[in-house]
């Protein structure tokens, strides 16, 4: 079949990868899709997707989520996209491309964006079963399947950027992983020896084995031709069940060679500054298959995007926009296996007379190097272990930064490093290097295009839409710009309240407002008054009312009256919702201390109700898989045995972990268990902006990990040291020492004040760690307030806490004694004895787990629903 071009000129794009897709967008932006027929030949079985984020498939991103192609975009612009149909031959004389399906397309302009293929060194048995490459979604699916079915040890050939990603992926699949790198260090292209050493240590600490300075000589196989390992150039053998080659990429230029286009000596289709091939003015090449006019083939997406824009602008022949591509920056920032690695500008210091500023701390795997010119110009750098400053440093590259370079590499807390804000940057500094967006463009998005949020700016400028490493700086710029242009940055809690959480707390406390409705109707935003509020302010105000309950005259029971409607779903059922609609049950086990009888009761209950049990990270026991109607029955038995709610569902005190301490441990200097129990019982049930965790260690060996807690206590010979603001979770932070050698009484008084001050001034969902970093004056200010009483509020803070402690009652005990509240614990209001049929379980390791297929196959009807219903049908 031959598609005959009509009067409209035709553009044929070969390759629908990341750069191909960007080229299509660039055509559409310039109106070329309206004036041209656009045909796309896509080899892979799916349209363009985010190859840069490929590895995130292993952390749960689905191929659909990786997609970069909006079918609506393709349709609206009338683009003909042929998926799974690669171009096979090009006839330049007749200006025809033939696809594998046999379709022939005549073109006026041909654009090649065929990308690269993974280079596999020509070692014996390189194609054996168990050998893979790492480039496409299909490659990853194959690796995953093989790893799960047949492999326990994996080896990656190549310790560059992709090799490390592949090794991390194998490790994530549960394999023991090895990396074999020919060069003497990891990531030889991006980092220098110092950076490579820091990287090596950190990667080995993660349990990966690295072999540098050795090459792969042969893949070893068994009789059936399946991989069993590899032979290395130093004569040794490495056993492995699978091998992933990641030894670099080569431009896919075969199609171009076959039709006589000029290619470089080491591959790549030779193009000029307009991305036009030097052999044929009607043919362009962009992305990884192109050999740019500066003699380089770029293996990164940002230069490819620039080439796509250049080619589109050239095809548009618009005199006002003459783009050229003459070379690009090779800056990269990666989060490899959780280690930050970045290199930018002249990272290896090749410029004449340049000087290095290096900070290296091998103990914590930190290495930072800046390359500075004679006149103080920042030329480039390498950051390993902490790439926080990457966004700003990259943008300053090529200029003289306003502060000394030394201060830019020293870690926070040593000396007084000047933190460079992005506001100090010049307008032409590149903020997003993936998309080549300058600071000025971002400012204009705010000032001229009226964007007021980061998502709007991303949409408007494309900044931050690729690797995401610039989003933090982007956010800071947007806020700064909004503030500068006099736009009130709305700091309100949500669409219903213009006040912050702190301001609402003050209003509630000062005016003794004890219902949400009163607060909304009197202090809500104009349009929100009289309404139903929202999912943000209701639980926030519910929490404020609960933490001040005795003082403002509200009920201390979170399910009382209106308060029941405010609570988050978990608090409303006093349990944690699981993915299939069942709940978990966590009784409080203060300090982690439990009697054998207590253990037996929990065991019996779990057995009788068929619950999955697990020891939590918080020194207690979690029982999973309770149906909503079983919760009261389970809790009746737990309360009878003396257990109380563990508030695992609440933004409130979770656990106070303890170590065994002085009583048993030969090192202990105080009774850490007793102190942990006392603290847990004192602060149980205290609602706060976020959850509160604590721990008490019996000596400086710190077995209870107190320094990772919101308030952590470490015993000393002279009493207790109190640490505050620690956090585990996604952004761990070590706690800061607030006071030393406290007596029992001093310790408790100080914690009372600290917690109440936090509850009073923190934002919604702000842990003590982020709060401490945000509030002006930080730790020093908090110390002034709670130790020195600089604001004169300590007495009030203490009495608020005293009221909470005196007023505490176990909410599960209250609930099981209240028939009206119990009536809510049913799956169906009209069939109270019928369990939710979607909640099902299947066995695993002698216990249960949720039956997930049940969630996806659609609702399974109960045997005969009409029989169990209390309601009736009527006309």
């Amino acid at each position, binding site marked *: 079949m031959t598609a005959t071009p009509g009067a409209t000129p035709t553009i044929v794009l070969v390759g629908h990868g990341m750069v191909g897709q960007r080229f299509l967008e660039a055509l559409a932006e310039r109106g070329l899709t309206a004036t041209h027929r656009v045909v796309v030949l896509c080899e892979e079985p799916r349209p363009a997707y985010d190859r840069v984020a490929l590895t995130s498939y292993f952390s749960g991103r689905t191929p659909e989520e990786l997609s970069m192609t909006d079918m609506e975009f393709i349709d609206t612009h009338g683009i003909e996209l042929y998926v799974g149909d690669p171009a096979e031959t090009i006839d330049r004389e007749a200006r025809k491309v033939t696809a594998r399906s046999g379709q022939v397309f005549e073109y006026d302009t041909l654009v090649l964006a065929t990308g690269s293929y993974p280079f596999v060194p020509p070692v014996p048995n390189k194609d054996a079963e168990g050998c893979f490459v790492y480039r496409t979604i299909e490659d990853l699916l194959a690796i995953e399947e093989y790893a799960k079915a047949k492999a326990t040890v994996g080896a990656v050939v190549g310790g560059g950027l992709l090799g490390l990603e592949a090794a991390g992926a194998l490790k994530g699949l549960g394999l023991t992983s090895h990396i074999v790198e020919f060069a003497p260090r990891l990531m030889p292209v991006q980092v220098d020896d110092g950076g490579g050493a820091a990287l090596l240590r950190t990667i080995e600490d993660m349990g990966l084995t690295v072999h540098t300075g050795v090459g792969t000589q042969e893949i070893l196989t068994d009789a059936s031709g399946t991989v069993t390992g590899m032979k290395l150039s130093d004569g040794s053998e490495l056993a492995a069940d699978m091998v992933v080659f990641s030894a670099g990429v080569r431009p896919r230029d075969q199609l171009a060679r076959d039709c006589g286009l000029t290619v470089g000596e080491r591959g790549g289709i030779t193009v000029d500054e307009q991305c036009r091939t030097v052999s044929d003015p009607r043919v362009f090449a962009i992305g990884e298959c192109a050999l740019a006019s500066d003699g380089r083939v770029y293996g990164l997406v940002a230069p490819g995007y620039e080439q796509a824009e250049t080619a589109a602008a050239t095809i548009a022949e618009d005199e006002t926009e003459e783009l050229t591509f003459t070379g690009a920056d090779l800056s990269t920032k990666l989060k490899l296996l959780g280690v930050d690695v970045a290199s930018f500008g002249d990272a290896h210091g090749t410029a004449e007379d340049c000087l290095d500023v290096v900070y290296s701390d091998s103990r914590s795997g930190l290495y930072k190097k800046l390359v500075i010119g004679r006149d103080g110009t920042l030329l480039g750098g390498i950051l390993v272990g902490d790439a926080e400053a990457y966004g700003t440093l990259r943008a300053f590259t090529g200029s003289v930064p306003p502060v000394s370079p030394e201060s830019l590499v020293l870690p926070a807390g040593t000396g007084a490093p000047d933190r460079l804000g992005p506001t100090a940057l010049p307008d032409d500094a590149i903020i997003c290097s993936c998309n080549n967006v300058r600071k000025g463009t971002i400012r204009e998005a705010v000032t001229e295009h009226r964007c007021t949020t980061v998502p709007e700016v991303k949409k408007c400028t494309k900044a931050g839409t690729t690797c995401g490493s610039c989003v933090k700086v982007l956010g800071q710029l947007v806020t700064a710009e909004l503030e500068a242009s006099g736009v009130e940055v709305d700091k309100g809690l949500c669409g219903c309240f213009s006040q912050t959480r702190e301001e609402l707390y003050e209003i509630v406390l000062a005016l003794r407002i004890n219902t949400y409705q009163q607060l909304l109707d009197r202090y809500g935003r104009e349009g929100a008054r009289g309404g139903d509020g929202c*999912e943000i302010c209701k639980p926030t105000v519910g929490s404020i009312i609960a933490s001040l309950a005795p003082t403002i005259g509200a009920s201390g029971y979170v399910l009382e009256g209106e308060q*029941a409607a*405010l609570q988050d779903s978990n608090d409303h059922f006093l349990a944690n*919702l699981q993915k*299939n*609609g069942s709940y978990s049950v966590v009784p409080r086990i203060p300090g982690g201390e439990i009697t054998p009888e207590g253990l037996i009761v929990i065991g019996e209950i779990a057995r009788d109700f068929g619950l999955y049990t697990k020891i939590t990270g918080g020194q207690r026991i979690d029982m999973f898989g309770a149906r909503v109607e079983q919760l009261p029955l389970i809790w009746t038995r737990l309360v009878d045995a003396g257990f109380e709610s563990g508030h695992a569902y609440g933004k409130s005190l979770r656990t106070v972990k303890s170590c065994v301490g002085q009583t048993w441990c030969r090192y202990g200097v105080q009774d850490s268990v007793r102190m942990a129990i006392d603290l847990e019982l004192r602060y149980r049930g205290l609602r706060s902006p976020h959850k509160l965790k604590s721990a008490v260690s019996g000596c400086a060996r710190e077995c209870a990990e107190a320094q990772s807690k919101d308030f952590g206590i470490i015993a000393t010979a002279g009493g207790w040291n109190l640490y505050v603001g620690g956090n585990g979770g996604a952004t761990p932070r070590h706690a800061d020492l607030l006071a030393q050698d406290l007596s029992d009484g001093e310790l408790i008084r100080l914690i009372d004040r600290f917690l109440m001050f936090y509850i009073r001034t923190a934002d919604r969902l702000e842990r003590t760690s982020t709060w401490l970093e945000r509030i002006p004056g930080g730790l020093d200010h908090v110390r002034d307030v709670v130790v020195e009483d600089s604001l004169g509020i300590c007495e009030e803070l203490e009495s608020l806490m005293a009221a909470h402690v005196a007023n505490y009652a176990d909410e599960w005990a209250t609930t099981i004694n209240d028939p009206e509240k119990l009536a809510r614990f049913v799956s169906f209001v*009209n069939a109270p004895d019928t369990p939710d049929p979607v909640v099902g379980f299947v066995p695993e390791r002698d216990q249960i787990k949720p039956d997930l297929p049940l969630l996806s196959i659609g609702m399974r009807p109960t045997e005969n629903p009409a029989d169990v219903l209390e*309601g*009736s049908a*009527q006309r």
Partner: protein
Amino acid sequence: MTLALETTDLKIQLQLGDDWFTVCDLTRLTPGRGVAALLPDGRQAALFRDRNGELYAIDNRDPFGGAAVLSRGLTGTHQGRPFVASPLLKQRFDLETGQCLDDEAVRVATYEVRAR
């Protein structure tokens, strides 16, 4: 949707085909919270009542996670329209139309509901 008067013996009814199916007493609904009802064909509906007494009914199934839990979400008003936020991953659904406010492509079924 009907404005429900505050009387104790009112029943909540859902329209199923031509029939009105009686679910429960109106008093079982706390303003601002929901309950789930089992329907004769095995489907589940989530019923809500807002502060002004308006009633709403949508399918109970969270289309993202699959669990039947929308009745347990928090409700609110967004630009004057009532919504419920799923307790699983917090996507919001318009209570009048079933439209997901965080994903244009997703919508859940709605039911006519009245109190009498």
